[in-house]
């Protein structure tokens, strides 16, 4: 295994490959900023406590393909750590962590902190093996500023899953804050069209804006919202269609964010 890979530090030109690797490694997750070359350069390379020696890369010896990297700041924060999901991650993760620890000892940092996906057992085992201890994770809070754009985008994204769903739905948001449009409609019939006001529709969903946000972000089950009286479907016999729509629109992916995205 060892002979297959080699370790080096950052060199000019790596940005794009590292950004692509980041996106690939976190493909299943949501909640992070998709890396572009420019963004990665600003958020990692140009970060105040990051030097090139703190960007540790593992690549294949033969074709120099980057399969893992970590960005370690002198403050002790591991801003990013990713490994190509298609390789033997156990070895690469260990190498990256060990190199990170060595680097931090060299720069006299007193601690090392990193975020790891909670369903990534390989990373967690590696951390455990290296005697890391767990801290409470930082909390992310999300507010929806444009409901019709989000619903439209989510509907477009799951169009295939919606199958035979052919309806125009009007959303009526209760207790909507001043920057939120309280009434909008979405037509789904092969294509997705969003209207900024109410149009003749098959049914309407009347719901508190905070509750709809919780549903779309995957925090609340739409059916639970109905049971609690926070969501109404009119006419009521369209209830099943409404539920299937909302379930399809829900974001089911796990939310993961590296320290680099908010530090």
């Amino acid at each position, binding site marked *: 295994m060892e002979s297959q890979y080699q370790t080096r530090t950052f060199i000019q030109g790596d940005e794009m490959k590292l950004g692509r690797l980041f996106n690939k490694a976190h493909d299943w997750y949501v909640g992070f900023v998709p890396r572009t070359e420019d963004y990665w350069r600003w958020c990692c390379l140009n970060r105040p406590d990051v030097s090139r020696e703190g960007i540790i890369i593992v690549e294949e010896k033969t074709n120099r393909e980057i399969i893992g990297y970590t960005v370690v700041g002198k403050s002790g924060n591991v801003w990013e750590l990713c490994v190509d999901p298609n390789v033997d991650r156990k070895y690469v993760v260990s190498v990256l962590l060990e190199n990170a620890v060595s680097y931090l000892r060299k720069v006299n940092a007193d601690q090392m902190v990193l975020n790891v996906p909670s369903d990534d057992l390989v990373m967690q085992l590696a951390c455990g093996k290296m005697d890391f201890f*767990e*801290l409470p994770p930082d909390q992310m809070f999300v507010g929806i500023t444009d409901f019709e754009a*989000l619903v439209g985008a989510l509907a477009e994204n799951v169009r295939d899953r919606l199958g035979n769903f052919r309806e125009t739905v009007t959303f009526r948001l209760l207790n909507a804050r001043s*920057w939120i449009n309280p009434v909008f409609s979405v037509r789904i019939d092969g294509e997705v069209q969003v209207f900024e006001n109410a149009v003749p529709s098959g049914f309407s969903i009347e719901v508190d804006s905070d509750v709809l946000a919780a549903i779309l972000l995957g925090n609340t089950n739409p059916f639970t919202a109905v049971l609690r009286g926070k969501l109404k479907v009119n006419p009521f016999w369209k209830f099943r269609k409404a539920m299937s729509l909302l379930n399809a629109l829900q974001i089911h992916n796990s939310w993961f964010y590296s320290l680099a995205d908010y530090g």
Partner: protein
Amino acid sequence: MVEKMYKYRLFLPQDSDAVRGLVKAAFPNFLEGDYWDWKHFNNPQFDPSIVVVSEKDGEIVGCSHWLKGNIKIGSDLVVGSFLTCDLAVKPEQRGRGIARELLLQRRTRETFRSRGIVVNYDFADPRLAKRLYTPLLGYTKVGVAVKKYAKVLNWKRLIDFVSNEDAGRILLRRFPKLRELNLSICFKSKSAPPLTLRFMNGKIEATENEPSDVHILVEADLRVLVSVFEAKHVMTQLLKAVFQRKIKIKGKFLKLYEVTQNFGLLKTVLRVISTPEPDFFSHAQTPKYKVRTFEDGDEIEIVRLFDKAYADYGGFVPRDPKYWLWCCLQRPGVVREGIFVVVDENDNSVVGYAVAGKWGNIWELCYDPAHDVETVVGMLLGETTRYLESMEAASVSFNAVEEDSALLKVCNKFGFEALISPRMYLSILDTRGVVALLADGKREELIRYFDEAILVKLKDVPAWVKDTLFVRIDRNGVYVDENVHPYTILVKTDFTTFSSLLAGVLTPSAAVAQSKLEVEPFRKTSTAIKLLSYLQFDAKWFFPMSDYG
């Protein structure tokens, strides 16, 4: 005429120094606060039209930043987003709704739409989110798939802290028992090198080793230790962890007892690792208080001190040097020798003052709540009483805030009694103006929860007040005038009751219960009560004698 004390505007390049300083002071534990330039000003995505500042008398007292970007929210779905970050307000200006106002600036459909923003997000303290972000902005906590891991590589930070002379002085002052303490504790954990703390001869020593001669040996996972020392009830959590064998403690019983007697000290020292007190060193130098009489130029600091001390109250004339000079220094019966000023000699800052009139009134007495109230107020009361005795005054009296229990204690010690409550009365001359002002302060909540047109009909109104008031609340905003318009709710009451409601001395539900307020239609009573509860003065009133004497 209304004047907002704080102005809110967009960031300008000339604000850079002030904003940088504000962020550095607010977040010193993150990269030592030195990251504003990289994160914002030098960020290729920096957009000054989405950075707002709050200003008071030309000074920047708060700031809030949005970072524009994209965020992935679905397998193949990326949307435009704002990251809310680096919301900072000067400590002495906190608690006045500035953060709230900053978060609401630029928050319009137009702002979001024109930039393609679909979501807004933040990484916040859950308590702050619960109190502010969620109710105000509708933020939802997302179910994260994140675990945070840490490893201690060395104890340098702790070792540096305990060997710092200023820290040692502060700890000795806070924990006098440290002087007689003779105790050594070794902490062993997998996630960190061993740490030994020795408390001896009033000093603390920290080393990275595991000597054999320690009094107490503590073995635990660092995660458990951190969670115990960050808990609200540390002792309870510690005992629980010991009982569950998550923490193992070995040592002599007497020494264990000493640990419990010095728990506060241990907590303070160990908290350096996880959540150090941000302003631990702000009073690194023990304040050296000195009292003197008034000197020209003091009025500037005095006015600032007054503003700071009564930030949370209404009911007085906001001070400026000109007003203060007239109402205090130039007052009959007041001479410079009767104005006492307490300064902290370390930086010559004014931390308290009292203006004594020779007939016995202390027109103003004010102290900086961040300082030792007993010493500062004690000095002021001592000097003013001595002065007034020499003036043969029959008594000494001054006004203070009712709920200031620290001041009450000092006053009792010096023989003052809280005898009377001066009576202030107010009369609303412009109901439309007052209601519009109150509605403006609660605009977001009103727009969110109400879509009503309320007509208020007042009886027994004085001749200079109109007997009708109309308030319309809808998505477009809040509109107030004194004409009759079609309404959805009619509120009938008398002028005195309505004034009392606005002044916050009567609750709307009490007014209904006492039949002083009627709502039509009846089913809208709870809506009317809820709405009226938003339209009340929300600050208690304090009136120094100098404002009316």
